[in-house]
């Protein structure tokens, strides 16, 4: 099964809807609740990043019998220093994003914590593609 969503950029009122729909779809299919929550949290953080930093993009979710693969491809400026971006508490989000409850510098660490595999392919000036893999029946939240 494959789901695909257009995620609009800079519209926080819609941000998170794709993740919520994927969560519901996985629930309807009877996927393990722990795996659903880990998928939903990791995807939601990636979706927020896509809206805040990436100027929007395309989100896809592919479910196979043993895992869920989420791919988030944005059209943004890319991540200049990935090691720094992975650090808890580091954020480049502007003040207005913090006022909206995000930009705490927890997004990428939260994704890493919840995913069984996290791949980030970022090219400055071209965009970032984040791939999140959650194994069904995989490990609990780290």
């Amino acid at each position, binding site marked *: 099964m494959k789901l695909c969503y257009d995620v609009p950029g800079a519209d926080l009122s819609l*941000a998170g809807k794709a993740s919520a729909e994927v969560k519901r779809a996985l629930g309807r299919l009877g996927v393990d609740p722990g795996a659903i*929550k880990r998928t939903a949290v990791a995807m939601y953080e990636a979706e927020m990043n896509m809206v805040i930093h990436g100027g929007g993009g395309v989100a896809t979710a592919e479910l196979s019998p043993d895992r869920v693969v989420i791919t988030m491809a944005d059209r943004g400026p890319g991540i200049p220093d990935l090691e720094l971006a992975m650090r808890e508490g580091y954020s480049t989000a502007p003040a207005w994003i913090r006022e*909206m*409850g995000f930009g*705490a510098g927890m997004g990428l660490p939260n994704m890493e914590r919840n995913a069984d595999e996290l791949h980030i392919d970022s090219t400055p000036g071209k965009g970032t593609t984040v791939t999140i893999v959650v194994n069904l029946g995989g490990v609990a939240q780290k």
Partner: protein
Amino acid sequence: MKVRDIVAALEGILLTGEDMLDVDIEAACGADLMSDVMAFVKENVVLLTGLVNPQSIRTADLMDIRVVVFVRGKMPPKDMIAEAQRNGMAVIATKYSMFLACGRLYEAGIRGGGTREIR
């Protein structure tokens, strides 16, 4: 503690979720940053927040949080209440600040909330 006891302890207004009044809640999380909620929450909590925007309801939904309290006298707009209702949540508004609301729930018997290692 039941949701109805939370409403009473906070002298709150239940904005939606009358069918949730007898649900038991053992833990609480007070936060305005939703990524912290996602990093921290593992139990069945009531979320106390001053963040009145759709992300608070969406984050709660993703984390399977069924009760959200808006502190400091903040009233969420109708579309947020409607989204919470669609998600089967209870939403409460209280006049108390975050500090006082958390303190009142602690005093009333909610002790769970977890800890996280300093890193």
